[in-house]
């Protein structure tokens, strides 16, 4: 787990919205933490567990079960290549391979300079424009091999 420091006040502020001891708020609270920090830092999980009266094992079980949560900080630009069926048959894997080579990372990985994270996602529901790549949530449709690395490296 990474050794970054977070501001505990920020985490407390998020968790104050949840009633004390309300275990059903676990997933939502984790989502809010993920949204605030871009990942789920251990310090924030500890504060969460205290507030919602959840054992820390259960919080980490949830944080590792659901794909939406990351225990590691992510890069400035999150590249999400859709690998839904429609994108797959229109060449999504080629795009993944290409980005892996260009940035020297594996899917799920982040570049050492914390600039880029590459993720694959099972369908963003924009199948008519397959293959789709989302850069920080902004969708790009009908992506051709070659063009996406240029776009990414242009912003590098």
């Amino acid at each position: 787990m990474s050794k970054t420091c977070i501001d505990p006040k920020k985490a407390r502020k998020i968790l104050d919205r949840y009633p004390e001891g309300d275990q059903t708020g676990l997933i939502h609270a984790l989502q809010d933490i993920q949204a605030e920090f871009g990942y789920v830092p251990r310090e924030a999980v500890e504060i969460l567990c205290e507030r919602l009266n959840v054992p820390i094992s259960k919080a980490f079980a949830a944080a590792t079960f659901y794909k939406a949560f990351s225990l590691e900080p992510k890069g400035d630009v999150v590249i999400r290549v859709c690998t839904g069926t429609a994108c797959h048959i229109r060449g999504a894997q080629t795009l993944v391979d290409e980005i892996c080579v260009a940035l020297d990372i594996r899917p799920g990985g982040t570049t050492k300079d914390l600039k880029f994270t590459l993720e694959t996602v099972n369908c963003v529901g924009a199948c008519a424009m397959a293959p789709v790549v989302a850069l920080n949530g902004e969708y790009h449709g009908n992506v051709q091999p070659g063009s996406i690395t240029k776009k990414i490296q242009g912003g590098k």
Partner: protein
Amino acid sequence: MRIKSVKSLASAAKTACAERAKNKMEVLVCAGTGCLANGSLDVVKSFDRAIKSRNLDTKLKLGLKTTGCHGFCENGPLVVIQPKGIFYKGVKPKDVKDIVDKTLINGEVIERLLYRDANTKERVEQYTAIPFYARQLRIALRNIGKIDPGNIDDYIAADGYAGLAKALTEMTPEEVIEAVTKSGLRGRGGGGFPTGRKWKTCRNAAAEPKYVLCNADEGDPGAFMDRSICEGDPHAVLEGMVIGAWAVGAAEGYIYIREEYPLAVKHLQRAIEQARERGLLGDDILGTGFSYDIKIARGGGAFICGESSALMKSVAGEIGEPRAKYVHSVIRGLHDRPTVLNNVETWSDVPWIITEGAEKFAALGTKKSTGTKVFSLVGKVKNTGLIEVPMGITLREIIFDIGGGIIRDRPFKAVQTGGPSGGCLPESKLDLPVDFDTLTDAGSMMGSGGMIVMDDRTCMVDTARYFLKFLVDESCGKCVPCREGVHQLHQILEAICRGDGKPGDVEKIESLSDVIVAASLCALGKSAPNPVLSTIRHFRREYDAHINNRKCSAGVCRNLFTFEISEEKCTGCGLCAKACPVDCIVGELKKVHRIDGKECTRCGACRNVCPVDAVEVV
């Protein structure tokens, strides 16, 4: 302003209609996820500026509206001009001036922005004349593309919440259940369970409180029906749920939605707030004393949470692992209380059934699968997008009439339906009517409505491998046959696609599949072997070619083929050399080109761009 009675709902509808009628012309710009990605918001802004700066809103009595997805996503951004129904595609901000000057002011049609039929090459002016739309029948999608999803008055003007008013004041809960039963409505999420029967069991369950939930955890890759409905007509979902809550006697409910759909979450949230403000949701709905409220629960990116018992655990803040269903969730569901869970499309159908009548719905489709179904028609088909058709239509009609056939008129190979639990159907099954039971008999399933068309450049072994990889990632890990068995299946297929297949692999796959089907707890495991088994059943020859001859004739499995440029066909246009990301194609302009086999990564970019199909798989 709160609507306190059915009467004031009627007058609100009248006012909203009158407000709409003031406009002599309406410009509708699609702002679904697809069109937004193509820049439709800039088009809206340009229209807004042009209209305001020239006072066209008052001069021409012109209204501008952003709508949900029109379904024809590949051609976006889409603009429709009513009342003439002129349909413009691929509109860019720079086209707006032309549209305003020519079409809005002078009533001329701009040829270059019209849709061009993929087969006849003719320009089509009218929205309704485009084959993609002409064959459709829209019930669940009835308002999408016509109303502004952010404006509740627009929904009310389109008879919105009239079904709810009718249910609450003219019908008893039992009569509502009776109507839904009579309509023959079956769950649109894939299960196909009769909705009326589900509601009745829940209503008769003794425990309290009861819950009514909506499943918007649309996880099947290649499907986006629910996203479009939540984005484009969120009030229809809410209205359906309130009617359902009235029928079963629930006071609380949740919409469980994927976090990958941020726009849908936003639109639903806004719709819930508006409906509460108007007294159509929350306490004392329409002054009848009936109360029901809805909260949104965002999913955590786990496919398994689309399964009912896993979904309910996730709503309760737990890990989404399914449980055995000796006791159904209509008896013991969320928080161990009786719970009705229906899919987005099912909920959207409900208000229509109540307003228009159960008989009208039952008259559509086939005897055992009534009504219509929304499909996302995607893959290697000319017209991709979202369609709604009556049940019983054939696959051929969908793919070739509505979809316009295969891209670049390549040969059709298969259509995949039912998501990761479904299967691939070959050409010989194209004339089957699409309904719940026929597709299951053919070795696939209806599923939630994803329909992915594949041509001769799609490898069926790779497709099976793809779905197994998906299922390995998404198996929750609770039971061994699914967790380990699907993993082993995937390993075997990986080996076959790599070129390490062994004789006997297919038989091994089949016997392993038997165990997985028999011994898994939930539907994910039980149906996990479907994609492999259906491809073995219909495309056994491809498996044999991979294993025995080390050949992938589709040109997908990279160790099993090479590309060559045909000397007879190559015209020397140079497009392939330009497209090649590793610069391994050489050749002078107007002379035959050649691929350097050592450098080639077999990405297929050259094959995709070649206008004469000279890049061949050997």
